[in-house]
């Protein structure tokens, strides 16, 4: 009964105990007064005899400890009290670990959503994208001819599909026309993904036959907004670019993309055998049959590539090209994986530094409590009990930090859009069960690591061995070693973080210095895609030709107010390589079976170079006489010339492109400045062919203006609309494109820099805390030294030296870690080596300097110790 009361009426008991002890002290003091002791002195003696009201209260609490639930409650209560008594330490633990756990959890949620989590389709590991590939660096999409061959000949897939998106004008009965993304798909895309309709049906096998009636599946959002609901939309009709489609079904709510490609409506793609193999660039997807590996599929696809080559040789002469399968998730995540992994590693390092930091604090604190714990041990508390006392207190604080961290992670994820670069699959990022579980795990690990050192101190019995009478325990040596090791570890972990941030920063600065090869000011671009339904590749009497449209579009653009010049290109710097083409130089051809070299390949109009501000260095630019009937000509960039014809002139050199062995060779007629098409870190190699010799269907208009480009955009778009009101058109300045290209490395750098700064601050705080503690603890010893004639300056130097002895091995370890981790960062850096000695030296110096600075204050405090006071105080 007493136990239960102890648990249930804790508050009342606490109150009663207060009163009881007050009564005791009063009586004791009165008794002493009666013996002739002055009242004030009597009260002091009474308190001394009782031995500290708080101590007694704790001991009574321990004694009432009601196992096991109540013991836990008691522990927690005790822990809470210990935390309240030491708000500074508590706040430090919660802030430092809370921030670290929060950041780690947020990054985990992102990594989990982007890299780890499964795609939202059944058996997602069996989904593959299919590409064409003719060298490890050159991969491109499928054509309709490719799709038909794969669909009819494959033996490894359950389903194969083809997808291509386009901007289309969507009209519904009684609704406003609206530009939407439309994804033309074959039925195989939906069956490969294993989707189920929210209403109606998905596309069926027959929907892709050339004779089928035009049908479409719409997104749940379109069904809601246009027809008032999923069921209501079925069997309605919609107009896309002026053609009517019957809505046969609606996708489930929340499905806004198929395999990462977004669209609002999904009209069925009707496929018939085309006259030539191209054009390429369509997304191929397939579901592997159960038990079939990606390698099996690769072999099957390679066989198909071989078989169809003779059929299409005249329109596609590249024998080396193969269909290759690639895991869908890999193809979606692509280049983001590396920087994300680096970020994850960085945030884990920060967490470890934070844990080491708090563990040091916990150790310092346990040492400060040796006396109290020894008293408890003497009064009968078992080691287990002491262990629980010590550990509960830390656990409680770390637990609070974990909760704070979880809240922080939730807030950080809401800001993730602003903090992080654009990521694929970012819709999957959420603080879900796995993220919460991760936070819990991080908290538990942190709690264990933080409690380990104090627990070890108790278990080794050092505290029990120390005397109650207030003399200092002599067990400090081992504890000091642990503390020093923890601080060293902080520096060891902080160094690679700081160095990597510095390298990324330098790489970013280098990127900013890179000349993109063109003049981005006063220019904008408009992407135009001409639908086959309305534009013919060559004059057929009915439809206008693509060449015709481009010519008139350029003419209209030039006439618009503020426009200086206008040009056409199939690729656009800094990040749109257009077609990356393979070629073979007649001067030194690739041996049979070897991989042909590749380079970004642009079809451009005659005034492209002037419009973009690319200088002509040698030879000539394209002219109006470079027509489809003339000799095939090309212009190359300086970097291309330097790579393939070092020290020689390239003018007049000849090559065949696209793997063609029977085509007439192309002659190089000019050399222009380097333009970055494959990112600013790319090489600047490039090849240009006249757009007139190979007229594109999709291209970018580049327009240079005299006035600010934003103001010239509107009139140009209006002028183009007058040519074809149904074309979806949107302009974007070149400045904006360039800024976007720099924003991702900029953001990675800022994020990593922030983590590194935190690690640096924590490490400095760690050494500061340790040295302050040592100075406090060795006051007497320092006093003796000074009494024996040590100069204050020498004492301060001694403290700093001692700090350095602790930091130095950490820094050495950190450099080693940095050297080992270099290959992680290599592919993310531009213009600076991952083991750049100057950076490593500079970062080591910064850490060393901050460590010295952190030791100066405790050093100064040591120097101010007055020998007489220090010696007398003990």
């Amino acid at each position: 009964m007493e136990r239960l009361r102890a648990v249930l009426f804790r508050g009342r008991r606490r109150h009663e105990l207060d009163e009881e002890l007050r009564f005791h002290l009063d009586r004791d003091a009165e008794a002493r007064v009666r013996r002739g002791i002055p009242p004030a002195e009597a009260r002091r003696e009474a308190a001394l005899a009782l031995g500290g009201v708080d101590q007694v209260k704790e001991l009574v609490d321990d004694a009432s400890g009601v196992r096991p639930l109540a013991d836990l409650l008691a522990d927690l209560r005790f822990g809470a009290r210990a935390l309240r008594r030491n708000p500074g330490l508590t706040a430090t633990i919660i802030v430092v670990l809370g921030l670290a756990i929060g950041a780690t959890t947020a990054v985990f949620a992102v990594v989990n959503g982007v890299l780890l989590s499964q795609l939202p389709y059944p058996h997602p590991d069996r989904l593959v994208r299919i590409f064409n590939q003719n060298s490890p660096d050159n991969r491109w999409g499928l054509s309709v001819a490719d799709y038909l061959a794969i669909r009819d000949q494959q033996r490894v897939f359950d389903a194969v599909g083809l997808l291509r998106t386009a901007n289309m004008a969507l009209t519904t009965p009684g609704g406003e026309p609206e530009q939407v993304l439309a994804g033309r798909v074959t039925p195989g895309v939906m069956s490969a993904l294993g989707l189920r309709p929210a209403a109606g049906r998905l596309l069926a096998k027959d929907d892709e036959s050339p004779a089928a009636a035009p049908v479409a599946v719409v997104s749940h959002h379109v069904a809601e907004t246009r027809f008032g609901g999923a069921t209501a939309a079925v069997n309605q009709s919609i107009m896309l670019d002026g053609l009517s489609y019957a809505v046969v079904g609606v996708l489930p709510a929340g499905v806004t993309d198929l395999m990462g490609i977004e669209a609002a409506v999904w009209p069925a793609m009707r496929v018939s055998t085309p006259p030539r193999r191209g054009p390429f660039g369509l997304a191929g997807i397939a579901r592997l049959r159960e038990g079939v590996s990606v390698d099996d599929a690769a072999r099957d696809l390679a066989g198909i590539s071989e078989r169809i080559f003779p059929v299409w040789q005249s329109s596609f002469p590249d024998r080396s090209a193969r269909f290759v399968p690639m895991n869908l998730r890999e193809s979606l995540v692509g280049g983001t994986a590396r920087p994300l992994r680096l970020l994850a590693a960085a945030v884990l390092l920060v967490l470890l530094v934070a844990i080491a930091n708090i563990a040091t604090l916990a150790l310092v604190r346990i040492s400060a409590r040796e006396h109290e714990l020894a008293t408890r041990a003497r009064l009968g508390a078992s080691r287990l009990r002491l262990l629980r006392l010590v550990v509960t207190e830390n656990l409680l604080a770390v637990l609070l930090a974990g909760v704070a961290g979880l809240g922080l992670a939730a807030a950080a994820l809401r800001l993730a859009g602003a903090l992080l670069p654009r990521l694929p699959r970012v819709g999957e990022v959420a603080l879900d069960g796995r993220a919460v579980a991760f936070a819990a795990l991080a908290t538990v690990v942190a709690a264990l690591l933080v409690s380990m050192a104090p627990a070890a101190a108790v278990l080794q019995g050092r505290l029990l061995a120390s005397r109650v009478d207030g003399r200092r325990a002599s067990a400090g040596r081992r504890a000091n070693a642990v503390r020093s090791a923890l601080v060293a570890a902080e520096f060891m972990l902080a160094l690679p973080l700081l160095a990597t941030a510095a390298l990324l920063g330098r790489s970013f600065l280098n990127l900013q210095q890179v000349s993109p090869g063109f003049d981005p000011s006063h220019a904008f671009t408009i992407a135009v895609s001409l639908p086959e339904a309305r534009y013919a590749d060559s004059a057929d009497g009915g439809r206008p030709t693509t060449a015709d449209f481009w010519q008139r579009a350029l003419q209209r653009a030039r006439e618009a107010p503020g426009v200086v010049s206008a040009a056409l290109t199939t690729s656009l710097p800094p990040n749109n390589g257009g077609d990356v083409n393979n070629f073979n130089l007649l001067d030194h051809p690739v041996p049979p079976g070897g991989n042909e070299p590749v380079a970004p390949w642009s079809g451009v109009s005659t005034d492209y170079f002037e419009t973009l501000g690319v200088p002509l260095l040698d030879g000539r630019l394209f002219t109006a006489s470079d027509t489809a009937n003339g000799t095939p000509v090309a212009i190359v960039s300086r970097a291309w010339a330097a790579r393939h014809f070092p020290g020689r002139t390239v003018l007049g050199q000849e090559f065949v492109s696209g793997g063609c062995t029977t085509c007439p060779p192309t002659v190089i007629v000019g050399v222009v400045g380097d333009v970055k098409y494959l990112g600013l870190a790319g090489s600047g190699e490039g090849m240009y062919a006249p757009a007139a010799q190979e007229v594109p269907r999709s291209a970018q208009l580049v327009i240079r203006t005299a006035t600010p480009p934003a103001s010239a955009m509107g009139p140009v778009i209006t002028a183009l609309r007058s040519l074809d009101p149904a074309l979806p058109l949107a302009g974007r300045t070149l400045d904006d494109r360039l800024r976007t290209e720099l924003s991702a490395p900029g953001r990675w750098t800022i994020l990593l820099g922030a983590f590194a700064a935190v690690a640096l601050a924590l490490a400095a705080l760690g050494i500061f805390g340790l040295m302050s503690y040592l100075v406090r603890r060795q006051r007497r010893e320092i006093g003796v030294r000074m009494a024996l004639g040590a100069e204050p300056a020498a004492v301060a130097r001694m403290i700093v030296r001692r700090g350095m002895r602790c930091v130095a091995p950490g820094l050495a370890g950190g450099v080693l870690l940095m050297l080992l981790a270099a290959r992680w960062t290599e592919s993310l850096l531009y213009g600076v080596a991952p083991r750049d000695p100057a950076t490593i030296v500079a970062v080591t110096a910064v850490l060393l300097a901050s460590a010295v600075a952190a030791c100066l204050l405790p050093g100064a405090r040591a120097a101010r110790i007055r020998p007489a006071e220090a010696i007398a105080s003990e």
Partner: protein
Amino acid sequence: MPDAADLLPGTLELLVLKALSLTPMHGWGIAQRIDQLSGEVFRVQQGSLYPALQRMLRRGWVRSEWRVTEHNRRARYYLITAAGRRQLEAETVNWERTSAAVNGILRVRLADL
């Protein structure tokens, strides 16, 4: 002050039970009584008295109630329970046996062996 002997483990409870078996007392009174009874040979660490009382409450050897002292102040009095008396008896017997045995050993001379 000459060092007073530390209590043997477990002895404090025995002394408290003995003191309470004479009359109900409050904590300070118990401390005084033990000092007095033991002729100041033992010094009760006052700080350890209250945890000991708490343990004994838990074991049901004593119970407590709030009473008014002769000086008209509220104080918590401890009373020995029936279980406490049994415990006192058992411990007393136990103690006597132990001390007799220890005394016997201490008095042994070589000639007796």
